[in-house]
């Protein structure tokens, strides 16, 4: 700074020493002053009215774009989260439904099996009963047939033994019947 002042004052004194016609460097001619002011005003007007409004707008738009981008991203994230939540809920519901259906199916199957088993049991019982009835009837028939044959054989045998025919005698038949009844009674008693 001292250098600056020294140089300036040296220059001024040098200018002063050279003669009267040399104007001082510190002179401020009014025309140069006005030219300086005009130069500034042109730059200021040009920048303020032409060059800078557009860039100011662009910078604002850029800020908005960046802020908007962040906002949009946050919104998209929230949406995605909500969607995932929804899907999860739907999935859980579907799983529940599937499990209910499975349970129902199991119950249905058990019922069906039970029913089929019942029917089968019933059919088996019927068959058994029919067979038993048939068997009883056959036995009864066989028994009565056998009884009669045994009687006849016994009579025949007795006739042969006593040497007389007892075949058509009612009295003999009565005797045989009594005898047989006795046998039956003995068998049952």
């Amino acid at each position, binding site marked *: 700074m001292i*250098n*600056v*002042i020294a*140089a*300036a004052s*040296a*220059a*001024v004194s*040098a*200018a002063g020493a*050279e003669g009267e016609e*040399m*104007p*001082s*460097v*510190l*002179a*401020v*001619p*009014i*025309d*140069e*002053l*006005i*030219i*300086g*002011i005009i*130069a*500034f005003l*042109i*730059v*200021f007007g*040009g*920048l*303020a009215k*032409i*060059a*800078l409004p*557009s*860039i*100011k*707008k*662009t*910078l604002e*738009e*850029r800020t908005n*774009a960046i802020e908007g981008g962040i906002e949009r991203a946050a919104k998209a994230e929230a949406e995605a989260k909500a969607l995932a939540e929804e899907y999860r809920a739907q999935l859980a519901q579907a799983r529940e439904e599937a499990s209910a259906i499975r349970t129902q199916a199991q119950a249905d199957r058990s019922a069906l099996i039970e029913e089929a088993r019942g029917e089968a049991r019933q059919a088996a019982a019927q068959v058994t009963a029919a067979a038993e009835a048939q068997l009883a009837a056959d036995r009864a028939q066989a028994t009565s047939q056998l009884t009669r044959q045994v009687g006849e054989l016994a009579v025949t045998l007795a006739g042969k033994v006593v040497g007389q025919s007892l075949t058509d005698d009612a009295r003999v038949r009565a005797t045989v019947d009594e005898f047989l009844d006795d046998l039956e009674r003995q068998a049952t008693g």
Partner: protein
Amino acid sequence: MSADVVVASGGLDCHLLSGCGFPAPGAEIFMFDEIASFTIGNLEFGITKVTVLLFLCVFLILGFFIYAFRSPKLVPRGAQNVGEMGYLFIRDGISRDIIGKDGDRFVPYLMSFFFLVWLSNFMGIVPFAQIPVTSIFAIPVAFALIVYVTWVPLGVYKQGFGGYFKGMLFPPGVPKAMYVLLTPLEFLSNLIVRPATHAIRLFANMFAGHLLIATFSIAAFYLLSASVIGILGSAASFTVAVALTGFEALIQFLQAYIFTLLTAVYISGALHQEH
């Protein structure tokens, strides 16, 4: 310039060993002949090299920024990138830093000052231009005057005539008796010294820098002769001139920055009540 200067300061034959005294450059290297002149009313306007360079600066600044921002894109490229760098340097680095968010409408104003002053300073090291426009005292005075007639009315408009000058001349938190001393000082410091130093700081830096470069350039020529000392002395002088040119490039930017920064400080003081 150098040829002009050399001719102006003793001619081509003036060398150390030819018995010629050192033709130190003086104020004459800041004086330029009128190229043309015109008269508006009673006032004659002289057009000199400096005037031409000043309007070249105006043209370059407007040309560049209008070109760079002609159709700005959200994703900048090329000239727009560079232009935005300049714009944001002023907006974020000066305006928002010093004035705050409400300083955004002063960005074109501050930007005009910064680039006009910087480019005007820069003309000092542009080949063939080789004169800082701001080393002509009227130019910094014009700029400082514009700043002065901006912040004073702005303060009155924002804070009211009484409020603004009361805050400036009667700083609060001071014993009443001190105002006898303080008020004249504040008046002098704020309303007279402040605009004067604003202009002189820029002018003197540019003036001195240019004078230094000119001195060493002339010395390089003056010392040159067909001898060892002549060659060494000339080379040393030339090296210093080159180094000073690089140094000046820094000073030119710095002074433009300081000028704009102070402008922002003055506007900020006008907008906000000083504490």
